[in-house]
């Protein structure tokens, strides 16, 4: 559909309006412009979705081409979009959740002096994210990819006067750039392999030309995954995401939970055909995803900043999505992406509501007992926590369980066990958060205790909408029921090539019986309940126990609390080393070597001049004598010849 360009164009118009004239508009107008732009984008997306559904499944692909962006010789890239069911899911999530978060922001940021700037950035982000998911080729995707990185940088460092905030923004951008390095190389390799960057053409050519396990495709997919690791905060490039919590909380909800960080997962799913041709890359994706899921969950266990716990939880959940994609369960990965967008956005917005109520307090040790004062926040937060922990019938249950189950049936037993353990950890740290924040005694600073108030309507409504979505969002993909997997059917045309490749030759497609599926489902729920139960015992029933455990395993506790010292390691090994190196080189090569030669050349002639000037005595007769001597010498020379 040619009008697809309208979807990113609306937020872009909002960005231009608020960016150029925002300071002259009233807050209400700014909010109207920003939210209106998102609402229009969402409405357009819904319209296109409706149009898409009217076509038969194999016709649900549109490729509007707008103009030639770059063309040099045989290299040519169009500004083109690709609209298929996968894009549609992403567009709906981005515009829908984005719209809710814009509404929420009007309340949350109400007293901030940079109101217009905030909404301008937020709209720009939406625009870039939509370009990313709508992209019809790798380069347009890269535009969105870098664009969201830029907005993330700007919004993390939104309160730029705070040193930690601007540090975090910079860190996010640079770490992402390291990932983009891989992405760029992947683009180059793709182009010189396939002669095009257009998704459909690449996949078509790849299916024709390459056998599974081909080295070139493996290289491309691994390099692409480096990009995904940076953007989606996986090991070892996850370090920027926890720091990104310096940004305003709705930003964390939108960018660092619901949308931008899932771009890597989207990209892997988009290139599913290539990944299916590269079993090695699939293994790497699955392993990295699983490792990150567990690794981040362990750190999340002991963090005390409410947003940081959620940040590590996001890293961990993204790991699950990659695990899903890595084992070939692309639908499950995208499904989890979608439900995660609902419940994680809700968790962040709920956390924002708490922080808002407490006047900026983020430490869960100084919270507690907020259930009565913040009922809406509590109940919605609880719904989201149940969803992320994977309790029936909340959204997270269906998506996470599908990933776990697919991991098992594709024969990744070790990964399954690890991921299941991670699920228990998830349930534990989420309910630790719930209990310490909303239940138990109040540890709130008495100063601010009587200011505590429930969020205004603009913030409460998005919370409630998202809570409903966190509950029902999973019902589009219900296992074991006839016609239960609607999302799977909707997405099937996108992934059919990849899945065809994966089932080919292997026993991949052999579906386990309903009975087994039921058993493992029950196991997931039991594990989650166990995590919740443990959290209840530690933080509600016996609040002194966590300290005792921490004291007992003090070394392990310290490692976890300090996030395995990874940040310190990077700082020391990479940052400081490079800076030191730069200083040394500057001192020795630029100053001591090159400039010394240059200045030395100058000094040589000046020196020579100071000695040679003595010849110039100023006595005319000396000059005459040398002329005579010269003449005599010349004559002698002439005679000698």
């Amino acid at each position, binding site marked *: 559909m040619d009008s697809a360009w309208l979807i990113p164009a609306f937020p872009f118009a909002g960005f231009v309006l608020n960016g150029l004239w925002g300071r002259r508009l009233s807050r209400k107008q700014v909010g109207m412009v920003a939210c209106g732009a998102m609402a229009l984008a969402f409405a357009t997306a819904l319209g296109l979705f409706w149009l898409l559904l009217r076509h038969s499944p194999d016709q649900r692909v549109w490729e509007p081409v707008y103009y030639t962006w*770059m063309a*040099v010789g045989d290299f040519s890239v169009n500004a083109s979009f690709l609209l298929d069911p996968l894009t549609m899911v992403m567009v709906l999530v981005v515009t829908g959740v984005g719209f809710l978060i814009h509404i929420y922001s009007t309340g949350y940021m109400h007293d901030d002096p940079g109101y217009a700037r905030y909404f301008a950035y937020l709209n720009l982000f939406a625009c870039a994210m939509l370009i990313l998911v709508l992209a019809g080729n790798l380069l347009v995707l890269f535009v969105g990819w870098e664009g969201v990185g830029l907005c993330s940088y700007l919004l993390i460092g939104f309160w730029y006067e705070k040193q930690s905030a601007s540090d975090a923004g910079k860190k996010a951008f640079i770490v992402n750039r*390291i990932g983009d390095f891989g992405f760029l190389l992947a683009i180059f390799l793709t182009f010189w392999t396939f002669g095009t960057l257009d998704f459909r053409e690449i996949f078509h050519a790849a299916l024709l030309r390459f056998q599974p396990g081909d080295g070139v495709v493996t290289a491309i997919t691994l390099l692409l995954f480096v990009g995904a690791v940076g953007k989606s905060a996986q090991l070892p490039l996850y370090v920027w995401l926890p720091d990104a919590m310096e940004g305003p909380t709705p930003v964390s909800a939108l960018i660092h939970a619901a949308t931008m960080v899932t771009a890597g997962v989207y990209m892997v799913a988009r290139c599913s055909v290539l990944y299916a041709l590269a079993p090695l890359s699939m293994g790497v994706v699955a392993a990295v995803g699983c490792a990150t899921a567990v690794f981040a969950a362990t750190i999340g266990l002991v963090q005390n900043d409410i947003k940081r716990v959620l940040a590590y939880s996001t890293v961990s959940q993204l790991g699950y999505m990659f695990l899903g994609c890595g084992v070939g369960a692309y639908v499950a990965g995208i499904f989890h992406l979608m439900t995660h967008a609902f419940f994680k956005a809700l968790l962040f917005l709920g956390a924002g509501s708490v922080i808002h109520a407490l006047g900026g307090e983020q430490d869960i040790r100084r919270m507690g007992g907020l259930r009565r004062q913040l009922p809406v926040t509590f109940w919605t937060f609880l719904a989201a926590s149940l969803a992320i922990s994977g309790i029936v019938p909340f959204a997270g249950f269906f998506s996470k369980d599908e990933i776990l189950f697919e991991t098992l049936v594709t024969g990744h037993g070790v990964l399954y066990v690890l991921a299941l353990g991670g699920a228990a950890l998830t349930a534990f740290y989420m309910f630790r958060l719930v209990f310490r924040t909303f239940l138990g005694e109040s540890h709130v600073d008495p100063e601010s205790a009587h200011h505590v108030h429930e969020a205004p309507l603009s913030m409460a409504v998005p919370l409630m909408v998202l809570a409903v979505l966190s509950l029902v969002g999973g019902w589009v993909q219900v296992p074991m029921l006839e016609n239960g997997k609607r999302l799977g059917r909707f997405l099937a045309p996108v992934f059919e090539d990849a899945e065809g490749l994966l089932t080919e030759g292997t026993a991949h497609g052999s579906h386990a019986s309903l009975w087994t599926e039921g058993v493992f489902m029950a196991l997931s729920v039991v594990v989650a309940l166990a995590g919740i139960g443990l959290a209840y015992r530690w933080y509600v029933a016996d609040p002194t126990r966590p300290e005792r455990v921490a004291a007992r395993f003090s070394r392990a506790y310290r490692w976890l609390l300090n996030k395995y010292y990874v940040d310190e390691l990077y700082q020391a090994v990479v940052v400081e080393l490079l800076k030191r190196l730069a200083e040394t080189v500057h001192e020795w090569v630029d100053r001591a070597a090159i400039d010394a030669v240059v200045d030395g050349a100058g000094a040589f002639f000046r020196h020579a001049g100071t000695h040679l000037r003595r010849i110039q005595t100023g006595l005319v007769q000396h000059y005459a004598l040398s002329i005579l001597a010269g003449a005599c010498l010349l004559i002698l020379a002439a005679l000698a010849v």
Partner: protein
Amino acid sequence: MDNVFFPILTAMVFTPLLGAAILVFVDRENPTLQRWVTLLAMAAVFVFALIVYGGFDPTRTGMQYEEWAPWVPALGISYHLGVDGISLLLVALTAFLGPICVLACWRDIQEHVKEFLVCLLLLQTGMLGVFLALDLVLFYLFWEVMLIPMALLILVWGHPARRVYAAVKFFLYTMAGSVFMLVGILVLYFYQAKTTGTYSFDLMDFMALRLPFRLQLWLFAAFGIAFAIKVPMFPFHTWLPDAHTEAPTVGSVVLAAVLLKMGTYGFLRFNLSLFPEASIFFAPLMVVLALAGIVYGAFMCLVQKDLKRLIAYSSVSHLGFVMLGLFTFTLQGLQGSLIQMINHGLSTGALFLLVGMIYERRHTRMIADFGGLSTPVPRLAVFFMIATLASIGLPGLNGFVGEFLILLGTFKVKPLWAAVGATGVILAAWYMLWMVQRVFFGQVQSDENRLMADLVPREVALLVPVVACMVWIGVAPTPFLKKSEPAVGRVLARVQRVQHTAHLNSTWNPECLVSWYLADRK
């Protein structure tokens, strides 16, 4: 004369000179009138450039708007101007920045205004002449002519502390290179006279020559040193930070935006076209130096304490990309290099303008003196941010197009080179954003910073066109690329022809050198 009834290139080159002549008769006590005269001359040049740009036919490969007249017929020196796809964009950039420079120094320069403006106009003539001259003596003349006003800009209007050192260093470095080029030109001339009997300095005649490999090596080196110093390539770069730091704002802008491009232009116009075999032979060395420049320049940026020095070193890094693209001998690489020359002119030019504006207000360029400037000067901060993002190659802005095409071309030849080059992209984000953070973010520390005035309409007016061009090239580079493609393709064809006939792959192969060398002796 391509739809124009008068010699438009001559008019373009000598309008600034005419402006300078008029300036001499303008009342010394009336600097405003002097500025207007200069602005008018620069604007006229820009209009001429627009006419040329608009009338340029991208489907033709040869020179257009050619003008030829005998000059010193006895020696075969002629007055020969012409424009093709390679020079077109650079001429347009030079002409575009002319009026902007005049506006930029409107308040900045208060002493010896007339002399300053005369220098600026002479510089403009010299730079346009370099890009348009097709006779090597004429080229050399313009090349040297532009050196003097530039050195004077640094020497007279520079920052008192080290301006003499910087000006002399700039002058000597460049002169040292030009001498080799002069010798090279003469060797070419006499070689042609000996083999064909024609005495001519015309580039077109030289292009028709088939030079022996041994001679090509020497000539490539002679021209190459002159151009490499101008670019500047590592390790000939140390004049640049000093010249940039000590020069007045406009001097830095012209230096970064146009002067450096004369080096890369020279490589593309002369070295690649005239000495294709030698280019192939030297390619590995040039690529290594280019990569070294990319990484080295970026590293140097990390330790700079002075804004201008930092941006100067970032130029070393960016020009490394241009050189990398040139010596990949792929259409993408060459086209990327050409567009990157323009991009660097715009983004670095804008950065120097902005630093100049900051300096005008605070009289310091030390990064440590700033912090939190976003609060008092939000508009300046926005422009600075955009220029920074263009400079670090954010897609959608101009810098990305150039870097992407260069690396794409490089990857085809050697993926490893592209990988090393791409680290420059990471480092660029690091040093530029760190610099922005230290200058614009954080708390405002001192009262001087708190009371800084934001941009005035004149400054906004001169920045907006630059930013508009950045976005334009970033979003729709194809019209620009199309203008230059045939000409670049022709240069490339010259190189590729010998690449195929000589079976010389671009690895540094001593045996190959020896056999070629011996073959020529016979």
